[in-house]
């Protein structure tokens, strides 16, 4: 009897897994459905409310923007089929499509455009778009498809912002009728998908909007599985629980790339990894800031943590974008770092002491990069106490002006405009900048209002250089998006890292 039990037990242990080879896909794998493993959830369903870069691709399934971007990040028509910025950049006229309906069947008009970018902000809704569209003083709506945005000061980047963070058109009638809370529970947009189910922190299910005005997505159903932990995402793609996932450690991505059914990618994107710095406390001395920057071997960081896929940066913009400087390099020079520190009375024996913060797991290898930098600094005479922050805490401290002297961060800029880099990183009046020096801040503020494109870009390029030369920021690397997908799943790759299920297809 005992032997029989043992045999039975062993039999069960051996048989159960093998008798269920398709157990993970307990449902028939549909050719028009896809499951994505995503690192984070949306911050509510009001797309204007919070600027969370990782949530933008999810919002882009439900909502549309007046302008869109192609994979090379050029502005292309979205809800607006044409747009014209005035030469003085004080007004922007848009011509909306007349064949767009919201998910509830009502037609999109210029009233919805006005509501989104002016009325709801003026009404005091707590939306982050109140900051990005702060220059809007009025929006005229001469017809149901025409809208003219009026700005209090020149807004040269207004067209780009119509395709950027949070600029999704929401329905005026529905929002007013049901209220913000109900809208959050049952969102209505014009996008290619409508929300079928949302379990906060766990999964989002979207069903195709068959009345969509644009190209119909192939995928009828999209499931976004929220998996915070990078290793769990790796396990999910490896086991077939998800079809595509992003933001995993580089080594793990490389390992998964060796699996026959999977394709692993390291895609350079428009985000930049940098050290945001303060201009006071342990970094009040410019020599220490510059020494800290000279001590960092960016190429070594790229090689160690990104397999050389991340391009080292000298200015806070990516190569090929308008604000980039081909003729400027900030060198890795430990001797120069020691020299600068000695001028201020510091050495490895008597180090300058600062605090440094980093996220851990927010982007690939963040904590490892921070530890490597601390090591590099130590060799020249800077002792940094490293602390780990989560994303929410980072924003709290930054807005309160309480970040430490240096903070490792990955800054998003899906449009690639220099204003969206240095303009927000170095503007003391913005909540994204720990740098509070008003001398540089005034220059930044002035550049926001320059209407002429050539003059504006030249201004940002000069400012980028100056910021690095005075140690106001330490650009490190161009971010790399790690992505693993099933080989038979095709998607359109965007330079800003968007992963859009509406572009996906099984091959």
């Amino acid at each position, binding site marked *: 009897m005992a032997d029989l039990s043992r045999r039975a037990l062993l039999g069960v242990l051996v048989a159960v897994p093998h008798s269920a080879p398709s157990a993970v896909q307990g449902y028939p794998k549909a050719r028009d459905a896809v499951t994505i493993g995503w690192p984070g*959830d949306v911050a509510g369903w009001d797309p204007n409310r919070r600027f969370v870069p990782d949530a933008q691709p999810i919002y882009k399934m439900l909502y549309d923007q007046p302008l869109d971007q192609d994979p090379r990040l050029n502005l292309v028509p979205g809800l607006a089929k044409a747009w014209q910025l005035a030469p003085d950049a004080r007004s922007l006229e848009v011509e909306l499509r007349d064949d767009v309906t919201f998910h509830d069947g009502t037609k999109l008009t210029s009233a919805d455009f006005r509501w989104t970018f002016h009325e709801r902000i003026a009404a005091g809704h707590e939306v982050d778009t109140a900051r990005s569209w702060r220059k809007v003083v009025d929006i005229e709506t001469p017809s149901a498809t025409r809208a003219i945005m009026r700005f209090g000061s020149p807004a040269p980047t207004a067209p780009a912002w119509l395709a950027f963070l949070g600029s999704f058109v929401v329905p005026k009638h529905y929002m007013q009728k049901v209220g913000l809370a109900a809208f959050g529970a049952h969102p209505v947009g014009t996008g290619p998908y409508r929300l079928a189910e949302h379990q906060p922190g766990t999964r989002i299910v979207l069903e195709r909007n068959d009345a969509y005005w644009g190209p119909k997505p192939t995928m009828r159903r999209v499931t976004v599985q929220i998996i915070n932990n990078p290793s769990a995402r790796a396990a999910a793609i490896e086991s077939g629980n998800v079809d595509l996932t992003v933001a995993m450690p580089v080594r793990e991505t490389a390992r998964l790339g060796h699996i026959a059914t999977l394709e692993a990618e390291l895609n350079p994107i428009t985000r930049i990894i940098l050290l945001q710095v303060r201009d006071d406390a342990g970094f009040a001395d410019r020599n220490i800031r510059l020494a800290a920057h000279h001590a960092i071997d960016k190429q070594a960081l790229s090689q160690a943590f990104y397999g050389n896929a991340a391009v080292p940066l000298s200015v806070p913009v990516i190569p090929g974008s308008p604000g980039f400087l081909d003729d400027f390099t900030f060198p890795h020079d430990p001797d120069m770092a020691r020299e600068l520190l000695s001028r201020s009375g510091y050495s490895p024996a008597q180090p300058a002491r600062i605090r440094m913060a980093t996220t851990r797991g927010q982007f690939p290898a963040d904590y490892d990069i921070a530890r490597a930098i601390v090591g590099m600094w130590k060799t020249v005479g800077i002792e940094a106490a490293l602390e780990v922050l989560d994303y929410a805490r980072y924003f709290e401290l930054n807005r309160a002006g309480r970040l430490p002297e240096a903070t490792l961060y990955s800054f998003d800029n899906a449009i690639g405009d220099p204003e969206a880099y240095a303009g927000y990183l170095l503007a003391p009046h913005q*909540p994204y900048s720990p740098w509070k020096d008003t001398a540089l801040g005034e220059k930044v503020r002035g550049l926001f209002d320059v209407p002429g494109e050539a003059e504006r870009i030249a201004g940002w390029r000069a400012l980028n250089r100056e910021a690095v030369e005075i140690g106001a920021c330490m650009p490190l690397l161009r971010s790399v998006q790690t992505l693993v997908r099933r080989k038979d799943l095709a998607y359109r790759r965007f330079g800003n890292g968007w992963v859009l299920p509406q572009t996906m297809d099984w091959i």
Partner: protein
Amino acid sequence: MARLAPCGRRLLAIAQRLLAIAQRLLTVLLLLFIVLRVLPADPAAPAAEIGATRQQTSLDEALPMQFAIWLGWLVQGDLGHSSHLDRPVAGLLAEALPATVELAILASSVAVLLGVAGGLVLFALQWGGWQGTGGRGTGRRGETRAALAETGTMLLMSIPAFLWALLFILVFGVLLAAMPFTGRLDPGLSHPFITGFLLLDTLLVGDPRAFLSAARHMVLPAVALGIGFAPLVMRVLRASLIEAYQADYILQARLRGLSEEQVLLRHALGHAALPTLGLLRAQCGLLLGAAVLVEVIFAYPGMGRLLVDAMRNTDLSVIQGVVLAYCAVVLSANVLIDGLHLLLNPRPRAR
């Protein structure tokens, strides 16, 4: 009157028990209130937002008044609004609480099933079978088996639930690809929401595919959570059985001619179940605590997952709501187990 007396005593005992629960709940509420006021306020909130929040939360009032107002809101079922998810906390809890309770019930069942089976085996090994040689005469082979079993349970006890979770994902999820390990349902299926208990809801809507999918998604998290608690049940049950088999009533039962199986099922196991129930009562809070990590690892949409996300986003209203819900669940489970204890324990019933 004399016949009513035990009933009256029982009512009094129940009333005292309920009063004690109310006291504990109030203490937790007070602690929670104080802790959340001690935490630094969210400096990220813009001035307008802080003003609105202060008005909404009556933060301008004196602390005792704030506490009273907060209690009033709780009584009305108003647990506040999630600043991160932009949704009422009560709604979020209504979705997450049943998921966690469902997981906890299944994990407890796993712990009890494995624990009782293992406890009986341990007892048989150590006691030399149901006939009970009292540990004497089991021989060297029996002693070795008992020692091995002891070491096995110690090993099982020393592995935390989250490690089981990772191990199961690696073995059954990745290597064998036999079981799903994220969420509660396959992507192709819809989640019916009637009671929030997914297994029940899928049955109520008559969707066997969804039921099977939900059941399969529950296996790994429930076993990972329950397996760590099974050795405790095994050891307590074994010790209780040894104690029971030394009691006179077992001897009397045998003298009455009952078979060993009848002695075990009718007398010994019933007696041994009481300390085991006491153990489950004590472990209830720990089980829910372990569920937090297990939920995170399996991307399981319960309260643990909600709590971790809320902490990550400094979403104080949600943290507050989840802690309260945990407290309510633990206290309710304690009441249920107490009731069960009362049903099974012959002594209070006889009094």
